[in-house]
């Protein structure tokens, strides 16, 4: 499974749930949208070894208080 997160790329050899992937990478689910093969998926979905996964970061910043 290929996983893209910003400029970084990861590869995993076993299937796992979205929740487990995010835990492995230390990413809070509230901070990304998970797209599997061009389809948005929730945390309970399974990711297969042949899947292309993109983690779209949702946090923007730089706003003056």
């Amino acid at each position, binding site marked *: 499974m290929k996983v893209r997160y910003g400029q970084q790329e990861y590869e995993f050899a076993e299937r796992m749930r979205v929740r487990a992937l995010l835990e492995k990478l230390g990413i809070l689910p509230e901070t990304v949208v998970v797209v599997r093969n061009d389809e948005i998926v*929730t*945390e309970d979905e399974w990711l297969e070894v042949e899947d292309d996964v993109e983690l779209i*970061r*949702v*946090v*923007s*910043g730089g*706003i003056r*208080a």
Partner: protein
Amino acid sequence: MKCRKCLKKAIIYMPEHRLALCSTCYSPWFLEHTERTIRKFKMFSRRDRVLVAVSGGKDSLSLWHALCALGYEADGFYIDLGIVGRDGYSEHSKQRCQELAERLGRRLHIVRVAEQVGAPIPQIKDLTAREACSACGLIKRYFMNRYALEAAYDVIATGHNLDDEVAVLFSNVLNWNRGYLARQYPVLDEREGLKKKVKPFVYFTEKQTTVYALVNRIAYIRDECPYALGATTLSYKAILAQLEHQAPGTKRRFLDGFYRIRALFAEADAMELTPCSRCGQPTTTDICAYCRLVEHVQRRRGLVPLSEPQVAVSEAASRSEFEGSSLFDGGA
């Protein structure tokens, strides 16, 4: 996980609402909640002309799209900051705004900082003692207000979301910025030369606005502004995300709790505004901060004073994708 409304496969679960929705049911839910926030805070009606401040990012473009989908008279206003960065940040963000303007069939007003101030944001940062975000914020607030007044818009709408507002509140409380606390609210009414400003997305998380953009195929710039990297706001957001993860609804409770007691800070906002002796925009001093910034930049660059600001208006498409398809009828 299944959509609570139609039992199709869900694309988002929102723990704070205990609600899962599919790609079909998500946008109607999102639009209904946008309308609810607009009405709750009496932001504007369908008789008002709304100027949406767009940056090319997911929040502001989603806001523009949502307001048009709801049948509001909403045009875009883009400020070209002249930031090149690694991938032509300002040019790309402007393109995203122009693409949506064409798709919506609405006007996009464009103003270029380099033409108005005499230098783009990166040079302003180098020529003055100001941080880039500080100069950028000052210039954006000035242009938004000035052009909304000059082009007779009734209200300025920005895409600030729940995460933005809570991070700013967190910062303002940590530093006890009473003046900022007094003015932190989803609606700032018109007064003494200041146009009304509203934040219709104040109750949406960043994840919710991102999903709206993706579901509606809104192309937005994903790169962060190069000057925002490492900004304090981002570290506050990381702390707040952890709190929200452990106890869903924390951010909303923090913000709504503050709204209920914000009157305590009203005194700190009781400054009198008078017209700037140069440009006529409201200020608490004789010459406003924007005019002082322009003077400083032009003196450092050896330039003569610039003429009156000009705004370019992009070509609007002949027909909106929402023409005749408003989801809500009647005034707010």
